Every structure is written in C-alpha cells, then in structure tokens.
C-alpha cells in the first residue's frame, strides 16, 4: 500500500524540471518533500497528483497506474496545491458539496459535517470562501483535499500563511490523518517538517539528492561540532583557540562563546580539561544539534 514513483522526468521546452525521480512512500508515513525554490517540487507533485503527464516514467497508487486508470487512481488521492485554488463565490458548504458530488461520496452531508469539524471550520461554515481569512481558506483547501477520505494525501505548503495556533492545529490534523494514509508534505518551514515528517526527500535542480529517515539523515550530516559556552570569568580568546580540535571561537556576548570544532572531532573532553586547568568555571554549555536547515543547506548548495 502507498505510492511508487518510478523514474519520472519532465521538461518544459529545453528546460528540464524533473529528471529520473524515483521514490516510494508507504501507508502510515509522512514524507517531507523538500528542495530550494525552482527545484522541481511543485512540478513533481503535479505529476504525482495526475495534473501533469510525465515525459517518461510511471506513477503507481497501490499498484494502479495513474495514466492507465486515471479515474480510479484519482479517487485515491487528495491534493492541496500551493496556490490553494478555491471558488471564492461559493459558500464553504457549497464548495464541499461540489467536491462530494464529484467523488460520488455517499451520505455526503454527514461527511461534510465531519470534515468541517475536523479542520475547525465550524464558526466560518456559513460564509462565502472569498470572505474568509487566509488561514481559514487554507483550512477549506485541506478540507477539500481530505473530503473523499483519500489514501494518499499530497500537501503542497499546507501551513503557509497560518498563525502559530492554526499551524499547530493543521499539523496535528496531518499527523492524525497520516496514521492511516500516505502523506507527502512539501514545506519551506523546516522546523515544521522536522516535527511532522518521518522521512525526508530532498530534490535540487530536478534531481533526487537524498531520501531517508529524518534521524538517519541528521546523523549522516557531516558537520563540525558547535558548542555554546558561558564562562563565569572573562576568557582570553587566544587561549581558547589553542585547545586541540578547536577550529574557531567567537565571543558572542559577555562571557558567552561560540566554539566550533574541526570536522568529525568531539571537543567536549578537551574543553572540560581546559576549564579546569585555566580555572574558568563553565556556567552553561550546549552542543548545537545538526538541524534540518544544515542538512538542507549541505545537500542543496550549488
């Protein structure tokens, strides 16, 4: 169960947007779809959603080829495009009613009520979509994507423009939905991807750079160790930089220093010994963890 993308490529004229992209995602998994602007994320998602025909390659939903059985395959996906296109002159319930009829949903009234409840649109359900705030329009977009209870959810920037409370609500909803579905989640908010996704795929210049579990990816990241240290006394930077394994040390404020090690060296023991020898008690120290941002930067730099 899930989605299989096999070797898809897409060009627009002479420009190659996506080249030989291959990956799969299984049921119950949230796959973060990352890449810099213009990397081919939206083109890939459009192909996976059945909007764009790839120049080559196959896309299978639970083994069903989207271009051989489009109507059957498209019943299985829910797609929220980045631009969140909606009919602004319709009421919330009218728009959901339209998509319910399009998907031949039985007992659509009950389903519409349930979805309105799920995405938190109760208070705004009697308004026209055009009169809603951006956050609520985004919720309508999510409601449209999940209305027919699809097995595969493709969400292109689902939390952009949301306030922190709305962001937390929608992220929670996505995590709950992912328990029984395959979710592909594209976002520029890397902290949100870190919180929400199990697996991450990074593309750059239309090519797959990496696909792996988030924790594995962070561990693989070759980064210099960075320690933030606050001493009880004033420190001479020259002495600090003499510690074995230290590449650089910068005073940030007062007695707080950012200490950077040479790659692949753990300097914690040396730093501790130095504080004892130099009588420079440490009030606070923190090892900076490799974040998604550093992994992203490393894999997508030119």
């Amino acid at each position, binding site marked *: 169960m899930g989605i299989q993308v096999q070797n898809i490529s897409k060009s627009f004229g002479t420009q190659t947007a996506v080249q030989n992209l291959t990956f799969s995602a299984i049921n119950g998994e949230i796959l973060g779809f990352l890449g810099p602007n213009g990397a081919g994320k939206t083109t890939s998602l*459009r192909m996976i959603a059945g909007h764009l025909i790839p120049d080559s390659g196959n896309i299978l939903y639970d083994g069903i080829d989207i271009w051989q059985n489009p109507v059957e395959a498209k019943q299985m996906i829910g797609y929220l495009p980045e631009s969140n296109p909606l*009919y602004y*002159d*319709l009421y919330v319930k009218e728009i959901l009613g339209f998509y319910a009829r399009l998907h031949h949903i039985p007992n659509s009234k009950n389903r519409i009520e349930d979805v309105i409840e799920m995405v938190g649109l109760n208070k705004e359900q009697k308004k026209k979509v055009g009169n809603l705030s951006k956050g609520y329009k985004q919720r309508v977009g999510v409601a449209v994507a999940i209305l027919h209870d699809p097995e595969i959810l493709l969400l292109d920037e689902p939390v952009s423009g949301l306030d922190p409370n709305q962001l937390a609500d929608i992220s929670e909803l996505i995590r709950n939905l992912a328990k029984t579905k395959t979710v592909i989640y594209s976002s520029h908010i890397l902290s949100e991807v870190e919180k929400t996704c199990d697996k991450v795929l990074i593309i750059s210049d239309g090519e797959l750079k990496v696909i792996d579990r988030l924790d594995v990816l962070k561990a693989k990241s070759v980064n210099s160790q960075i320690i933030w240290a606050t001493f009880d006394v004033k420190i001479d930077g020259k002495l600090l930089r003499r510690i074995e394994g230290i590449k650089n040390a910068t005073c940030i404020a007062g007695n707080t220093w950012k200490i950077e090690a040479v790659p692949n060296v753990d300097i914690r023991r040396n730093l501790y010994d130095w504080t004892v020898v130099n009588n420079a008690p440490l009030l606070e120290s923190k090892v900076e963890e490799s974040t998604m941002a550093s992994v992203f930067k490393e894999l997508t730099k030119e």
Partner: protein
Amino acid sequence: MTAILIKDINQFFGNLVSVSSLLVFYVLMGLILWVFPDYSILDGYYSSMNSFFTVAPMILLFLIPALNRDAIAEELDTGTLDLLLTRPITSLQIVLSKFLSGIIIISIALFPSIMYVLSVYWLGNPVGNLDMGGVIGSYIGLFLLCSVFTSVSIFSSSLLKNSISSVLVSILLCFLLYWGLYLISSLPVLYGKWDYWVQWMGLDFHYAELGKGLVGLHSIVYFFSIVTVFLFGSFLNIERLKR
C-alpha cells in the same frame, strides 16, 4: 458531470452581473418586439414571429459569449481547473459539463419567449392564425444556433485566461460564422461560381432554412458538426494543460 453542472448553474444565478445580463436581454427583446415600431410584432400586418427570430440571433451573438465568459477562463485564471484535473473526471466530461450548463442557462433565458408565441397566437385573427410549423422550425434553428454560439464561447474561454478577451474572440468567431461567410460570398472572385456554397457554410443559411419549417438532416448535421469541432478544440485546450 452533474457536480459541475449544479455548481456552474448555482454560480451563475448567484452572480449579480450574470443575472443582470439576462434581465437586460429580456428588457431589450421586449422593447424591440413590442415597443419599437420597426420590428414591433403589433405593427405587423400578419400574425408572425419573424421579427423575433430575426432579432434574436443578433442579440444572442453578444449575450451568449457574455454569459459563458467565465466558463473555463476563470477556472484557468484562478487555478481551480488544475485542481479539477486531479479529480476523477476526464477533460471531455469537463467540456461537456460546461457546454450543457451553457445550454441550460440560455434555454432558461429563451423560455419566457414562449409568451410571445402565445400572445401572437391569441392576437391573430382568427385566433391561432400562426404558422406553427415555421415557429417550431425556427425554435429548433434558434436552439441549434445557441448550441453553436455556446460551443464557440466555451472554446474561446478555454483558450484565453482573460474574460474580456474571451468574450471578444467569441463574438468575432460567432459573427464570422453567422454573417461573415455570407459577406465573403459577395466578393467578386466568388460571386456567380461559389457564392451559394460559401453561403451554405454559414450559420445564417441553415438558420433561415429551418425558419421556413424545413428541418433538413443536412442542417442538423451541419450544426452538430460545428458544435463538435469547437468542443473538440476546447477538449484539446484542456488536454494541453497536462503537457
């Protein structure tokens, strides 16, 4: 398909501009047929609906492109068509739904004109002195003409994102199909040799034939062929979005 039909008709009657266009149509037709002397039915010597069926195409040529201006253009512009393409519906079903909604809307617009027929029927001396064969033929012709104008409007709407450009292109195409070929037939190079056949290719020729009560198979096939060509063009325009 019914989903798009219901949505489009809902959107149409929820839009003040669209409903106003219908009202303007009713007022204009009423004024021309009952008030202004040149075409007034009351000033005619015979109980006839000819003035209605002569004036109607001229107004419909502007009205139908205006009513269908947003059929696909707006969906293209806002991106809702992209979302529609990811749903379990084919491009052909999208085009046919848009066409059928257009036909339903223009049928609703023309329905009150039955009152004109009834009025002339009752005003005739003796009562009922009206060529009903001609009236029925003309209504068939008008319906087929509306189908062509609607398919042309859907085609322009699928070609251009901008509603105003879409309306202008539709009007131009409808004009060329309706009168353009008749005007071209009078060119010296065609006159006397090919003028009949050039006129035969125009909508005006077949509409006039149907108006005489001559419901010929060739006219029906002619109208359906033009509708098919423009709907197929619209289908290709939507399919092009997938490339």
